[in-house]
């Protein structure tokens, strides 16, 4: 099947601590990088989707960005869905080109969270997603909310801290193969288990990074994709799932919207989880990935942790996953965090992933989740 939409350009900036960077500067660099990658000019962009920023927050971030870049597209808006934003923006861009409203939609994200906000500042800002009356008075933070999921998941399905640690180690192994990754020091399971306690059972190395960085993709119609530089990556399927916002109101602590979002995306693409060659799945915490791998159906309940220990998530494994190192070891800078997963999927499908290349990768799965496993969006991407 087809959604009549193609990714024609993809780019991410340097990541990590980038002194002198700014939110809008990272947006501009990512956007121009994606345009150059596609071989398109600024004038060929007729739609712009932006996300949100912590360091330069604005009610109308997409309009601010267009002002900065000096462009006047026919369609321009910002989308906010936490970690699901990047995938939802791509899904929305696909709808815009498939319906004929746009030919080339620039989807751009970036924030200088590390240099512009500090680690403490970022943790405090993120904690504001907690329910103001029924969560925040009790000291909830994003790691604490995921820790509540982790404890319950471990109780029900027997996942262990060692298995979660194996996930962190696998991500670091991938990051070592990526010259741009923020964290390039090897780690072991013991290092993860000895890292600082954050919110039991999660430790520092179970948690994602805080980074500066930007990323963008261009989504084009079939006609517009024909003249671009690289083999276009087709958006074959997309789906969303939304079950709650606050963890206190989650219908389940073990089953989340990724189940329906992925089922919809697979059905639209006419494929199953078993057909996927490479997966780039949101990994805000080790437990996030474990829950999603099992909930989506890549692994049986209770077996994703064992699979991680066995190396199944490695390049050459049963399901190569987060081949760039993910949010855990590559980088995480707000909405760009999820966009890095999409950019990596494009590299893999074009065969441009160098030392990280998954052999004959033709079908990729990309997934983002926002809130506390609250909002989910899944994409199936492919090349012929």
């Amino acid at each position: 099947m087809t959604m009549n939409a193609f990714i024609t350009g993809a780019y991410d900036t340097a990541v990590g601590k980038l002194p002198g960077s700014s939110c809008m500067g990272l947006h501009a660099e990512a956007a121009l990088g994606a345009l150059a990658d596609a071989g398109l000019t600024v004038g060929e962009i007729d739609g712009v989707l932006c996300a949100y920023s912590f360091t330069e927050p604005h009610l109308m971030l997409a309009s601010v960005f267009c002002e900065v870049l000096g462009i006047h597209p026919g369609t321009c808006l910002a989308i906010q869905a936490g970690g699901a934003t990047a995938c939802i923006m791509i899904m929305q861009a696909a709808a815009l080109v498939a319906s004929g409203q746009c030919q080339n939609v620039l989807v751009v994200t970036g924030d200088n969270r590390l240099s512009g906000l500090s680690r403490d500042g970022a943790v405090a800002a993120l904690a504001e997603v907690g329910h103001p009356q029924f969560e925040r008075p009790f000291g909830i933070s994003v790691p604490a909310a995921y820790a509540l999921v982790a404890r319950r998941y471990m109780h029900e399905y027997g996942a262990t801290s060692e298995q979660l640690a194996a996930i962190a180690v696998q991500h670091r192994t991938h990051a070592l193969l990526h010259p741009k990754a923020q964290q390039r020091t090897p780690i072991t399971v013991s290092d993860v288990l000895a890292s600082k306690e954050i919110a039991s059972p999660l430790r520092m190395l179970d948690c994602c990074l805080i980074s500066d960085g930007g990323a963008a993709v261009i989504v084009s119609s079939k006609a517009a994709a024909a003249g671009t530089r690289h083999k276009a990556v087709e958006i074959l399927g997309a789906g969303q799932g939304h079950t709650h916002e606050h963890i206190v109101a989650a219908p389940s602590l073990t089953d989340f919207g990724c189940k329906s979002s992925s089922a919809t995306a697979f059905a639209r693409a006419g494929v199953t989880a078993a057909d996927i060659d490479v997966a780039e799945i949101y990994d805000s915490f080790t437990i996030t990935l474990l829950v999603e791998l099992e909930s989506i159906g890549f692994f049986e309940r209770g077996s994703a942790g064992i699979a991680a220990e066995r190396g199944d998530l490695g390049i050459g494994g049963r399901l190569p996953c987060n081949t760039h190192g993910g949010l855990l070891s590559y980088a995480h800078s707000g909405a760009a965090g999820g966009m890095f997963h999409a950019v990596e999927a494009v590299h893999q499908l074009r065969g441009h992933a160098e030392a990280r290349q998954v052999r004959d990768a033709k079908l990729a799965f990309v997934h983002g989740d926002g809130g506390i496993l609250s909002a989910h969006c899944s994409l199936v991407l492919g090349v012929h």
Partner: protein
Amino acid sequence: MGRTGMGRPLPNPAAETRSFWEGCSEGELRYQTCEACGVVQITPRSVCSHCQSALLAWKRSSAVGTVLSFTTVHRAPTEAFRAMAPYTIVMVDMNEGFRLMVNCDRALLPTLAIGGRVRIGFEDVDGMKLPHAQALS
């Protein structure tokens, strides 16, 4: 976001939650049920999460529930909570079918476990009564 200042963020009651917080101040734990369909609301709200009726009634809870999950926070999100750390957050599924996130008595910690039964009492925080998990007996 309620009275924040430099201290703990305290609840700022809204129309649909005022009765809950008034109950806490009187030592009574309250929850909402829908008079149209009977569904218990997991957290207070203005319309039923099942049938969207606005006919929500407040009831008094037995204040007993079961631990759904818990975490001990070492890395607190703000200065006020850093002064409390480590502290424990517990999610409790109440007998009547609603849910609370609360902190807990230190005395409860050694026996705190998923599936364990707890009682909800109230603790004074900067002049406001917040629900709080205690040992059942």
